[in-house]
């Protein structure tokens, strides 16, 4: 981290913004969970050899009957709820981030091409985007998953199919105005190939608004994935995300075994809340209109 960053206006505003700091603390905690989560629990929840049915449905440790080995209680297979959450957070975050990166790459490429070349290509890409935007993402994802079947790879495809549009639109808009500018004309006169102009000159100038979109999208994707998994058309049972853990907890909620669904939900909430807090700060900082 260079001295210019520490003395920048961005960092100055960040230091004074309590919710931005709170958001980043939450995100750092989750980063630690994703990287080192399994180190915090003794049990590997998906190694059948480590499960014992005698441990099933133990309440959290502070309630009567709690077991110190299972801080947040256990589910029907004697799997620790905390262990499930730590492994599940990995799956949820991995899906959210990967799908965001895929959407960003595909959407940005489509937007750059549409904005740079215009004409029929532009019309075709934007028409697809328009049609897609008139449907809620959740419904498109649900429909795609019902056609594909469950699986992490399929969830990633469905989320990308839903997510690319917002990048394509944003990038196309800014590309259209960048192409008019003199530096692009100059690059053309200098005889640079289109691919190089797009990559070296246009792309860096249309990136900034994407940062906010990408940040918030990770949160949205985590929620959509959780909803899909809750409906049984998301990740497979062998690699449960937080959403699937909640679904499994739902089946026993009526018997009063609340801890199997309450805790995974609190984790999703904290994770997405952290992302949104930070995204809100970025939006205010990077939006020149509000300055």
């Amino acid at each position, binding site marked *: 981290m260079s001295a210019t960053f520490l003395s920048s206006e961005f960092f100055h505003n960040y230091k004074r913004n309590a919710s931005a700091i709170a958001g980043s603390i939450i995100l750092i905690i989750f980063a630690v969970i994703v990287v080192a989560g399994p180190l915090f629990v003794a049990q590997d929840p998906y190694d059948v050899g480590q499960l014992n049915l005698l441990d099933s449905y133990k309440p959290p440790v502070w309630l009567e009957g709690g077991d110190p080995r299972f801080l947040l209680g256990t589910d029907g297979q004697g799997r620790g709820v905390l262990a499930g959450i730590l492994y599940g957070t990995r799956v949820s975050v991995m899906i959210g981030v990967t799908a965001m990166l895929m959407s960003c790459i595909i959407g940005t490429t489509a937007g750059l091409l549409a904005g740079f070349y215009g004409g029929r290509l532009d019309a075709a890409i934007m028409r697809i985007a328009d049609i897609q935007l008139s449907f809620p993402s959740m419904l498109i994802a649900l429909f*795609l998953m019902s056609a594909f079947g469950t699986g992490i790879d399929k969830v990633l495809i469905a989320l990308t199919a839903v997510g690319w549009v917002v990048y394509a639109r944003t990038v196309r808009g800014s590309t259209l105005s960048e192409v008019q500018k003199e530096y692009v004309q100059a690059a053309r006169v200098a005889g640079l190939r289109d691919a190089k102009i797009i990559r070296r000159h246009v792309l860096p100038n249309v990136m900034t608004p994407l940062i906010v979109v990408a940040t918030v999208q990770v949160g949205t994707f985590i929620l959509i994935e959780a909803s899909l998994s809750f409906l049984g058309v998301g990740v497979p049972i062998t690699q449960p995300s937080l959403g699937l853990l909640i679904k499994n907890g739902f089946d026993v909620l*009526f018997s009063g075994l609340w801890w199997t669904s309450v805790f995974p939900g609190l984790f999703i909430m904290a994770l997405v809340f952290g992302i949104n807090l930070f995204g809100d700060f970025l939006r205010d900082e990077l939006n020149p209109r509000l300055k």
Partner: protein
Amino acid sequence: MLGYTIKRLLQMIFVLWIVSVIVFLMMSFTGDPVFMVIPIDSTQAEIDQARRILGLDRSLFEQYLVFMNGMLQGDFGRSYVYRQPAMDLILERLPATMEIVVVAMIFAALVAIPLGVYAGANPNRTASRAIMSGSLLGISLPSFWVGMMLIFLLAVQWQIFPSSGRGDTVEFMGLKLSVLTLDGWYHIILPSLTLSLATMAIILRITRAGMMEVMRQDYMKFARAKGVSRRGVLYGHGLRNALIPVVTIFGLQLGDLIAFATITETIFAWPGLGKLLIDSIYRADRPVIVVYLMLVAFIFVVINFIVDMVYTWIDPRITVK
């Protein structure tokens, strides 16, 4: 204006046609529906016969023509599971879904608009900051989890509200409605509240942003200076102008609510469209899924059309080309 309306109508038909192609193609990739209609121990000859009866032995293009032809004549196929016309099934469930969606929308508007106006008019007060954090939390919550928590606390622990079903319904103009009975309201409150949370948060944020923009305008100061009460300025002059983006969002949110109703209905065992869709997905009941998607697509293009029309009506500055 007439030219614009006609152009929009043609666009709507084009969009619906594209959707029909996509829906048809995607559906033909899903599991083989033949195995949904025949007994497990069928012979190969029986399987072939079933395939012929369903028209699945023909080429994809021919199948599409049959499908399109049927749709244009109002024949949307029969459910493999219920053995009745898919459209009838859908129309039977539609009122239940519209009920929770409309009630959720009303909840959202009643809470979000006043709070949004307050937070936009007094952006620096502690209460406004609390409202904004609350709305951010509302966006961050998985709605199905909220529904489960409401069931656990209010239905299982304290037993104030029922946890599932629709309650008593009354026939009104051929539709079975829950909102006309007290028992129906008991049943509708939890699902609608669950469904409305995200929309509430979004409308609140849009209203606030609109109000903050409007508060800077000179006409607000002028109205206040000429002696209009603060309340009158906020709601009469401010909200009226801040409302324009809210109307669009309302339209878009209606679509989202119909989509998210699938989850809410699953949790609360609410016998609406969404639950039918999920059940049909589990059972690979293709005709029902297709009709659901086409109907929802139709609803969406109509909503978008209405939103565009309302736009020009509430904001006379917008002229259509």
